[in-house]
């Protein structure tokens, strides 16, 4: 399941709920991405999504990942709107029979979310805001899986 949320969320609660009632799951891997302060240079992040487009694109990709890694389930929560340093931006959890698939699928989903997911990101610093695009490193990370 994928959720885009405009308010801060609590990763621990989502992980607890995701783990509940899994008699046949041997492994759950999770990742939480936080907004960095960049030593005062990043006052806030602003993330824009296109509801009905962004979530559909992520779901299509995540369903591919589910088949590729033989996942039992996944959970993605992504912030939109204005995000303060220290707040969680993204939560990803994957459930599988064994740990390797859960770890790899989690990594794979994050590489996609960081580089190709349809978001528009603005960094607000002391000198104003600027729209940012994926870094070369983000693209290289994503290409590992091609």
């Amino acid at each position, binding site marked *: 399941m994928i959720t885009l949320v405009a308010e801060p969320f609590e990763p621990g609660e989502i992980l607890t709920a995701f783990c509940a009632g899994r008699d046949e799951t041997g492994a759950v891997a999770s990742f939480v*991405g936080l907004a960095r302060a960049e030593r005062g240079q990043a006052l806030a992040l602003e*993330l*824009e999504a*296109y509801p*009905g*487009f962004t979530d*559909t694109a992520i779901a299509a990709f995540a369903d591919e990942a589910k088949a590729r890694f033989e996942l039992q389930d996944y959970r993605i929560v*992504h912030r939109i709107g204005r995000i303060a340093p220290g707040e969680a*931006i*993204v939560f990803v959890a994957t459930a599988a029979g064994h740990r390797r698939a859960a770890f790899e699928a989690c990594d794979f989903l994050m590489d996609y*979310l*960081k*580089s*190709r*997911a*349809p*978001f*528009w*990101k*603005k960094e607000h610093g002391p000198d104003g805001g600027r*729209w*940012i*695009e*994926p870094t070369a490193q*983000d693209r290289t990370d994503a290409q590992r899986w091609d």
Partner: protein
Amino acid sequence: MARVLLFGRLADLAGWRDRLVEASSLASLRDLLAAGDAALGEALTGPGVQVAVDKVVVRGEASLAAATEVAFLPPMSGG
């Protein structure tokens, strides 16, 4: 009437994000927007800008029926 949505830097450049425009095709819609704001017109055809019609990315031309939603999508950043 097509509902036009702008995202990211395109919305900042235009000063609006959501507007109703009377246009029967993507080409006429682009012409209308460019006639009102030359800088926006240029940006809409800039490198990496994609167009989604009713939330599906289209390449090339498309006719626009009433209540069609047209979104101009600048290069995506990832989350």
